[in-house]
């Protein structure tokens, strides 16, 4: 364990340093990604204003505000790695990774950990604090309890693992086609729905909800945010956390299987 940490920690540390180097661009991208949150904030305000019900899709207007911005905070754990895989495959550098005595997937995940820590520290924590202050002072809701923060963070870490393990499997497509940009866009658009990022899953018809809850994607964003909102308790809470853990195992095994098959048929030219 200690040895492993010594091998893979530098990957995370390097990624963190690399991110720090391009601070200017990074802050602009924060503003851009916040655009989406603000658009949905204003849209939801108008929706609640036009509705004659106080609670829509199981959420009150105040809860929806918290939902929208906590989605932003939570999505900082969604660090894509499939673009790096595609890059490595196209350039052939994936061959170098095969001859080194390191696990390719673990090195990618370590790099993602670096990015995640940076994303989480740089904008997300501040936005989170902002949400809490706004929630208590303007919306007049009770502040979040320590217990719930801990549960939320545990759920977030599992979300991170589910996402990177899933994206690793997705990235394996790069071995079959060189242009996965189009597919990445499809993935992003689909995930917007399936994870609850665009709209809470509780807004879907019952049958669709059941399906979405069964898929691994709702565990990425929807589950931690709903935990944060205090929508789960007791057995239900244990169930959603266990479901996240199960998906980690499934996706890990699936990724290993695909990786084995794919590297067997890999042909790299030159080098």
């Amino acid at each position: 364990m200690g040895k492993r940490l010594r091998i893979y920690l530098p990957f995370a540390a390097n990624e963190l340093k690399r991110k720090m180097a391009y601070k200017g661009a990074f802050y602009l991208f924060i503003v851009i990604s916040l655009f989406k949150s603000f658009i949905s904030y204003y849209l939801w305000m108008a929706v609640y204003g036009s509705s004659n019900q106080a609670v829509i899709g199981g959420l009150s207007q105040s809860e929806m505000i918290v939902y929208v911005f906590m989605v932003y905070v939570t999505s900082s754990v969604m660090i894509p790695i499939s673009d790096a895989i595609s890059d490595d495959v196209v350039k052939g550098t994936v061959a170098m990774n095969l001859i080194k005595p390191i696990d390719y997937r673990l090195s990618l995940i370590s790099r993602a950990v670096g990015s995640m820590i940076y994303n989480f520290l740089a904008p997300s924590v501040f936005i989170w604090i902002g949400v809490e202050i706004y929630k208590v002072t303007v919306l007049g809701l009770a502040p979040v309890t320590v217990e719930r923060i801990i549960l939320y963070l545990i759920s977030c870490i599992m979300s991170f693992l589910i996402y990177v393990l899933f994206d690793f499997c997705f990235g394996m497509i790069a071995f079959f086609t060189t242009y996965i940009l189009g597919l990445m866009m499809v993935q992003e658009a689909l995930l917007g729905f399936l994870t609850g990022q665009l709209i809470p899953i509780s807004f879907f018809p019952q049958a669709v909800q059941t399906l979405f809850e069964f898929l691994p994607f709702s565990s990425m964003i929807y589950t931690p945010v709903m935990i944060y909102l205090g929508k789960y308790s007791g057995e239900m809470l244990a169930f959603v956390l266990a479901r996240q853990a199960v998906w980690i195992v499934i996706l890990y095994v699936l990724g290993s299987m695909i990786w084995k098959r794919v590297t067997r048929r890999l042909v790299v030219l030159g080098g």
Partner: protein
Amino acid sequence: MRTCKRYLRLYRVLITQFIKTIMQSKVDFLMGLFGFFFTQIMGIAFLYLVFEQIPSLKGWTLDQLIFIYGFAQIPRGIDHLFTDNVWLVAWRLVLNGDFDRYMLRPMNIFFQVIAEKLQPDALGELLVGTILVVRSLSKGIVITDPLHGILFFVSIFAGALIYTSIKLFFASFAFWIKVSGPFLQLAYETADFAKYPTEIYAKGIRFLITWVIPFAFVAYLPASFFLKSEASGVVIGIECAIAVVFWCIAYAVFNKGTHVYESAGN
């Protein structure tokens, strides 16, 4: 007249070359197209879900919002199709010195930049936009007298020019700061705000997207002219004026930029 003909011929030659490279990888082309198409469809699905809960949004019906959404895609798609290479100026052509080759040829520089590439992915946006507009026409919610018909095409053209101008303006910063991609991205993404009626936003945001980065004039404002009979055609006039002014500014900055351009390394 002769220069015009020459440029048309050059454009055909350059684009033919480009299309040959696309044809080498048809699968990539189809996937890009599908990607954009799919993203737009998801945007519509989102509207449907929201309107399951409410009868109208600030007085707008679902059908009207779908028209605004679709209408907005057309100028965006046109600009995307023809001038996508401007993005590369912002991200790398100036940085790595590749811009040299435009400086050396006896042709208009901006023409060379855009003639080098067509972005077929944009067809996805155009396709969705057209489908949604046709759908709205068949529902009879759009005004269809000849005046509105002509202004429809004028508006689309002016809207595309506004897009191109904003892109060119921010991309031109690259001549001074080498990479202006993040700024361009920031400006470009504000277009997302204009997909919905601007009444839903706070005053500051409304002002920003109407007059500073005028994407409201590409999407929501002209679209509402085609939906509501009491709306005045002046809005299309302002759209055209904005398009011309922004284009002149952007092109002047671009020209100035090409004069301060310094190549990179050897």
